[in-house]
């Protein structure tokens, strides 16, 4: 949600960054940046030895194989080509990464409630490939796919073990064997030492820049984007909800409640909006069965329109007959930012 705002800032910032070198060009008669830059550039080109040995020493900081003899050579070569000027003015460069949002401080009240704002999520895109959406929808239920993209390249056998650990130990019982195999195949095809190298253009190293660039796309890779005005509820459901609640809304007995025939979600439209926005935890009963799992919040991943669309889809599918939910309702509920405990207490009986 913050990105559209950021984007608005970036353009003037970019312009500023561009303007600054021009200004410095105009106002430094002693050492015009153009001239000094040229000097530096050619000096660097002339002293290839210096540049390469220095950069290898710096870059390979922890390789720790630099011997004193190499050191002496470096010293000698560094001493020879003196730059023409004593100093070079600082250069300003257009920089998108490095933009840091400081955490906003909350206006606290003096009661016994201690509340913080949202936890920022900046999930980088996964490498495109076959079944990437299966990876996104399944893995994102419990964790951001950053847990995949921040891993070192791992052998397929390790990915296999990891996926089955999630299924069998971490309770990701919603991952079918078929999907598990798809996930393993995808990871083995894109995140192994053979296929995943730092610096590859397709290496999925796009970090904060990518979500920032897509204003209407949810920041989280697990959420399926939809147009801002005509979100397809069925599509959003299939991508984000069906792995737990089932393609036909039947849920998983004992783990994930059914949506088909679930009275609580077809009544007050504010309730389903609240649950989608902030998630739900605590004990609930659906059709006589008790559930005490946790549903993640989708506020950061889905827009008001998307939440309205998926809520409307759920309320009008599989025999449910609830009224449509409007984006305005979602917007109002988002602004209300109700704590999960309140949402639970407001659950229609």
């Amino acid at each position, binding site marked *: 949600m913050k990105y559209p705002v950021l*984007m608005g800032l970036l353009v003037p910032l970019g*312009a500023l960054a561009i303007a600054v070198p*021009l200004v410095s*060009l105009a106002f430094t008669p002693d050492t015009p940046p*153009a001239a000094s*830059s040229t000097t*530096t*550039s050619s000096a660097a080109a002339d002293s290839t030895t210096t540049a390469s040995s220095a950069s290898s020493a710096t870059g*390979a*900081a*922890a390789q720790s194989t*630099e011997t004193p003899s190499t*050191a*002496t050579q470096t*010293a000698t070569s*560094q*001493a020879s080509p003196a730059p023409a000027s004593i100093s070079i003015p600082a250069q300003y*460069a257009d920089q*998108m990464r490095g933009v*840091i949002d*400081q*955490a*906003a401080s*909350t206006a606290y009240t003096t009661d*016994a*409630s*201690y*509340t913080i704002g949202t*936890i*920022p999520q900046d999930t980088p895109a996964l490498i495109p490939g076959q079944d990437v959406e299966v990876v996104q929808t399944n893995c994102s*239920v*419990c*964790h*951001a796919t*950053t*847990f995949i993209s921040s891993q070192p390249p791992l052998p397929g056998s390790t990915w296999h073990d990891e996926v089955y650990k999630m299924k069998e*130990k*971490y*309770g*990701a*019982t919603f991952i079918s064997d078929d999907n598990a195999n798809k996930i393993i195949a995808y990871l083995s095809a894109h995140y192994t*030492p053979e296929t*995943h190298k*730092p610096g590859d*253009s397709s290496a999925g*190293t*796009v*970090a904060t*820049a*990518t979500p920032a*660039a897509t*204003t209407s796309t949810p920041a989280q890779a697990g959420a399926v984007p939809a147009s801002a005005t005509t979100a397809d509820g069925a599509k959003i459901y299939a991508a984000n909800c069906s792995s*737990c609640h089932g393609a036909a809304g039947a849920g998983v007995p004992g*783990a994930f409640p059914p949506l088909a025939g679930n009275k609580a979600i077809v009544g007050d439209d504010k309730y389903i909006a609240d649950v989608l926005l902030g*998630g739900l*935890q605590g004990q609930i009963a659906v059709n006589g069965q008790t559930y005490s*799992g*946790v549903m*993640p919040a989708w506020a950061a991943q889905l827009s008001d329109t998307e939440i309205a669309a998926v809520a409307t889809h759920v309320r009008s599918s599989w025999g449910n007959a609830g009224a449509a939910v409007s984006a305005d309702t979602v917007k109002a509920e988002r602004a209300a930012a109700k704590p999960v*405990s309140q949402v639970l207490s407001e659950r229609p009986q």
Partner: protein
Amino acid sequence: MNEPTSLSRRSALALLSGAGATLALSRNTLAQSSVTNTAAPIFSGPGPLTGWNGLGPLIALPQKVPLIRLVDRPPLYETPRAYFGSAFTPTAAFFIRSNLSIFPASIDLSTWRLKLEGNVNNTVQFSLAQLLSEFEPVTVNAVMQCTGNSRSRFQPRRPGGQWGNGAMGCAAWTGVRLRDLLKKAGVKAGSVQVQFQGLDKGAGAPGSGGAEYKKSLNLDDPVLDRCIVAYAMNGQPLPLVNGFPVRLVVPGYFATYWMKTLSFVRLLTEKDTNFWMATAYLQPDNLKGTTTPQAVKDKTVKFKPVGSMPVRAFIVTPDETVKAPAGLPMTVTGQAMSGRGAVTKVEVSTDDGKTWKAAKLGEDHGEYAFRPWSFAWTPKTAGSYTLAVRATDASGAVQTGEPIWNPSGYLWNTTERQTVVVGSAG
């Protein structure tokens, strides 16, 4: 990539092509690539990560300064190196690690209670007001370190949070003795372990490791005598992401036991077999916690739950951003720690570990705290120098350059190194 931003950035550059020479050259003169649409990588490998910190953008969570994001959900955020200049890590810069994604963003202290239950004479519960007023406050200075701190150094690499060295911090923790709380409940005969649980939850099926996070300590473990239930760190309340209102402090032990938002203390009559005790956070059953991939494959390795932290020393300054002029006197500084006895000695090498000299130990903040150290060094000639540091603790353990390996990426304590480029002073 064809995102709108990239395009607008490119066209902005194109517009500038008249003055473009300046920009293009200025890019060449900068050591870092600055105008680029490719973000810095967030992964490394298959070799070890060589930088001091892990990879990732700096992002601020509520009540925190920007930290290095490894994973956004659940939050894994690493403390940047520069914050270790002090023996006490600033609260706002303390690392964050949750095992499960769903944790409270709001605590209502009018209803929050710390409950002691299970095999006890009286099930009791305490409000924060009671913890503050009915118990003697005690303070312990202690390092909290993630069990997987420095996992990114492992060879072969192992999955998990790819921490550099910043999944640690030292704070002055103030709170209530765990023993005082246990006395109020009355531990019944037949209890073997005490289990800790906070309010974290995950989307995993009920009963699985992905649903709840629970850790247990043996009732006969002497560490219980020094455990406190802390409501303050460095004289401030805990940030929510660091466990407000109280977290368990287990001086000398890895952070996996330092339960955040501690809400349940449970006396067990049988050993805890939940996922987080029986399957996760296990180390090879030897002091260093090390083995080989082959031994694991052959299933000849005996595992046990992790516990105390081995001795480590870290170089904080100089870092790789320093280019030092020859002849300029410098101070090499850092922190040392051990969960197995006070740090007794820190030695520094300026020749990649060939020879060692004693560093000066700084103020002693207690056995479980960071021990600052410093070492005066004047590099005489230009060149590339590899500094190394090793610490010794009261148990007699000395760090070595031999890498640690185990399947989960735990207990790394190999000697730290830092290459420093020394230039001519002209």
